[in-house]
């Protein structure tokens, strides 16, 4: 609580941030909404008038739509499963006493700081290249036929690359959460006769549940929007066209803005469904 004077000062000081974000949100959003109801082809005649919900229907009924949804779900789901399971294991390992803990931590989180275009290119060329990639050498060393990773196992390859980038994030957050666990709780459980596995299941895991949910939601939002990794590796070929990439192609590559905008509205709705759950958790945290 405060005085009238400081309250009005507060309103003025908040204004720039609020106005900027409001503009950033409302103006493009309104434009996308308007475009989505139009036949709009900038290179082939421009604005060709209102078409109602035609773009929405066409976007969903196009042959590329359902595969792209499927691809999106596989990539997002795959990365989530890998990063969360390995993230939990890794964070528990890193929480144990060892020599050089700080250095190991640095090694583990490093991939998160690598820009997406670099990690995509390095993996694509230096690891997954069927001739000169390290994987090819490895396969040959065991007498196996090198795999054409990005065409024959394209989805797996993308999941691998993206998981490598996001595993540090999950690990770091789960590690922070584990470290905030009161060790007396574990000691009490030990005194009560709980073996290590039960201590993990009944004490550690419940303690981590909130952090896991947060990792899940934040990663989902970022993973739904992955772009550079696909742009650089396969450009959406070989079944790696996600919803985001499909919309990008409609808008910028084939310049069908109306159709792409309808797709954009779908993407916004999808992201908002996830966002609502995330915001509930974050919001709860605000009260305490």
């Amino acid at each position, binding site marked *: 609580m405060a005085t009238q004077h400081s309250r009005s000062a507060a309103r003025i000081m908040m204004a720039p941030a*609020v106005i900027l974000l409001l503009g950033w949100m409302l103006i493009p959003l309104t434009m996308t909404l308007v475009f989505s109801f139009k036949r709009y082809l900038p290179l082939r005649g421009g604005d060709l008038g209102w078409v109602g919900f035609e773009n929405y229907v066409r976007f969903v009924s196009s042959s590329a739509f359902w595969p792209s949804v499927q691809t999106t779900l596989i990539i997002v789901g795959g990365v989530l499963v890998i990063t969360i399971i390995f993230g939990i294991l890794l964070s528990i390992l890193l929480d144990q006493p060892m020599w050089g803990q700080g250095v190991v931590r640095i090694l583990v989180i490093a991939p998160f700081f690598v820009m997406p275009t670099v990690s995509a290119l390095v993996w694509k060329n230096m690891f997954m290249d069927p001739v000169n990639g390290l994987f090819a050498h490895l396969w040959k060393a065991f007498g196996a036929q090198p795999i054409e990773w990005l065409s024959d196992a394209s989805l797996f390859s993308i999941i691998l690359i993206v998981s490598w980038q996001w595993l540090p994030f999950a690990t770091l957050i789960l590690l922070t959460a584990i470290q905030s666990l009161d060790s007396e709780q574990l000691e009490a459980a030990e005194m009560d006769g709980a073996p290590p596995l039960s201590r993990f299941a009944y004490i550690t895991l419940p303690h981590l549940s909130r952090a896991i949910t947060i990792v899940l939601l934040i990663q989902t939002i970022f993973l739904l929007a992955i772009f550079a990794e696909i742009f650089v590796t396969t450009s959406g070929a070989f079944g790696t066209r996600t919803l985001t990439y499909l919309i990008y192609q409609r808008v910028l590559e084939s310049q069908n803005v109306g159709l792409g905008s309808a797709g954009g509205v779908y993407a916004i709705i999808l992201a908002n469904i996830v966002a609502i759950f995330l915001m509930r958790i974050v919001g709860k945290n605000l009260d305490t």
Partner: protein
Amino acid sequence: MARAVTTRRKTINTVAAWAIGLLIFFPILWTILTSFKTEAQAINDPPLFLFFDWTLENYAVVQERSDYMRFLWNSVIIAGGSTVLGLIVAVPAAWSMAFVPSKRTKDILMWMLSTKMLPAVGVLYPIYLLFIEMGLLDTRIGLTIVLMLINLPIIVWMLYTYFKEIPGEILEAARMDGATLKEEILYILTPMAIPGIASTLLLNVILAWNEAFWTLNLTAAKAAPLTAFIASYSSPEGLFYAKLSAASTMAIAPILILGWFSQKQLVRGLTFGAVK
């Protein structure tokens, strides 16, 4: 209380953790190693790990051929500029919400968070169009503004959680001592919040540096930062592994170093204060 751990167990932990750590770090290590090889050595069969003729030639070539410094400079300007601009807008806003909360503060914070979740691709064309109209396409100023806007919610949130930890009584004491609002923020709040502001700055430089949707879609030759520069290696130059590695190493090195400094703040920033 910590407990004595047997050396045996500690050894097992150490070996396992280091093995996994090195495995995860290996792609980066490999990139750095390759950047010091010649092109022939880079694709040697079998691969060469440490025993090759170390050379700095790739770094020289990358700089010479592609004008690397220009992209680096673009990255510095865009990442630094967007962060500084963001801080200027966010510090007063975070002050208001942390110290003069109203019934709507929570709603405003949540709403700001929600703008961060707007999928970029959903507004790609409008932004693209606005950029053309305003002559901002392929300019550093345009990109700086966009990156400032997409990271503003994170900046406000991080500052808010840091400011919340400063006891309000201290600011009231300053007010009683005769400080004006400006003096209160300048002499009391800012010095006390320096660690928080610094980590906010760090995290946002990292996020802006690595941003790879708008930087790829809103730039061409002129304002392209390192993300776009590296993407241009996707073909056919990407086949020159040593040069690709040198360019990549230079692009990620500064941020790796910054990142290591900011690991703690990273958690808070990326979870909007929900995990500390």
